[in-house]
């Protein structure tokens, strides 16, 4: 008597998914064992779909929002840096072409003059150095734990505010002492940010977990 060939799981799954062969379809009509297996596969799929929904154990939006804000801020800083670089190049062209075209480049002129000045040059240079350090510590996205995210966010807001104050101070021709004070505060905020990054990196490595 010939042995009956039962269907493989793959053949039964194909049948369940409406792709079975004619042989498989005919076989389950007559084979109780394979029909039972096919019914079991239907049942398991239904049970999988009916598993209870698992909700996130905690609120992660603040982390995501902090990372999104950082990314936007970095883009703004990058845009600002590019704009200044463009201004510097334009200024260079103006200088090469002669003094008559210089008036239109007044904003860039002021900034370049500030960076080159004896009183503001060192603090601006330090500020740039710290920003490069920060860039090196931060990949495209980085998500912190809640206390670090809050501290980072406060410091970044402070830097944005200082940048606005610097721009407005220049626009109204404020004295050098005020500009020096603002640049100094900017450097302090950046130093604290870099410090936070260092501490945080050390901590997440210790805990064996890195939030991307």
């Amino acid at each position, binding site marked *: 008597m010939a042995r009956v060939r039962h269907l*493989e*799981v*793959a053949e039964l*799954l*194909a049948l369940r998914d409406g792709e079975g062969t004619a042989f498989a379809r005919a076989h389950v009509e007559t084979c109780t064992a394979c029909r039972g297996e096919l019914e*079991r*596969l239907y049942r*398991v*799929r239904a*049970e*999988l*779909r009916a*598993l209870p*929904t*698992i*909700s*996130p*154990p*905690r609120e*992660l*939006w603040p*982390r*995501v*929002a902090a*990372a*999104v804000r950082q*990314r936007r801020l970095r883009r703004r800083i990058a845009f600002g840096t590019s704009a200044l670089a463009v201004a510097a190049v334009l200024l260079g062209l103006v200088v090469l072409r002669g003094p008559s075209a210089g008036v239109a480049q007044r904003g860039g002129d002021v900034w370049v003059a500030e960076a080159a000045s004896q009183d503001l040059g060192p603090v601006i240079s330090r500020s740039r150095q710290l920003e490069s350090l920060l860039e090196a510590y931060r990949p495209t*996205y980085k*998500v912190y734990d809640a206390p670090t995210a809050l501290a980072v966010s406060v410091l970044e807001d402070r830097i944005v505010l200082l940048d606005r104050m610097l721009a407005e101070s220049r626009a109204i021709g404020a004295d050098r002492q005020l500009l020096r004070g603002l640049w100094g505060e900017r450097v302090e905020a950046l130093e604290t940010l870099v410090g936070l990054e260092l501490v945080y990196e050390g901590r997440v490595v210790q805990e064996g977990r890195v*939030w*991307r």
Partner: protein
Amino acid sequence: MNGKALVLASGEVARARAGDTEALESLYHAFATPVYNLGRRICGNEEDAEDVLQDTFLEVCRSIAKFRGDGSLWGWVRQVAVSKALLLLRRERGRRVRGFEGDRFLRDGPGTPPPEPSAPIDLETALNRLSPLSRAVLWLHDVEGYTHEEVGELMGKTASFSKSRLARAHQNLREWLR
């Protein structure tokens, strides 16, 4: 969709696309549970599921302006979530392969150790005991409704790979759920 119903106010998606933070937050709260659930089922643990949730929404916030709106928003978010979950599995797998070269069982990364032959287990426990790849294929095909071609493509493999993984997953479940 495996998760609670989504409720988004009209115009919320348009505002999210324009970068409105409140609208992005609404989007997060509308989709957080199904995305977390997907991550939890595919990755099999809470920690990785949180990473999937977080990475998915970073990507959603970054790329929503590119969402053309010609498909369902959940379909798009789910696609992002699946990519992030599979990326995480690939990273985990890479780490294990580097750490345990030569161990065939670990090449796919282990699920939880198989149960004692006599110990009865429920479907949820059995699901977590599957190897990560088998669990991912099973969930994507049987629950999320991806075709074998789509699963294969998502994993950088073929439809045949997906079919054989699914068969293996069901064989394991059959054995464990007897």
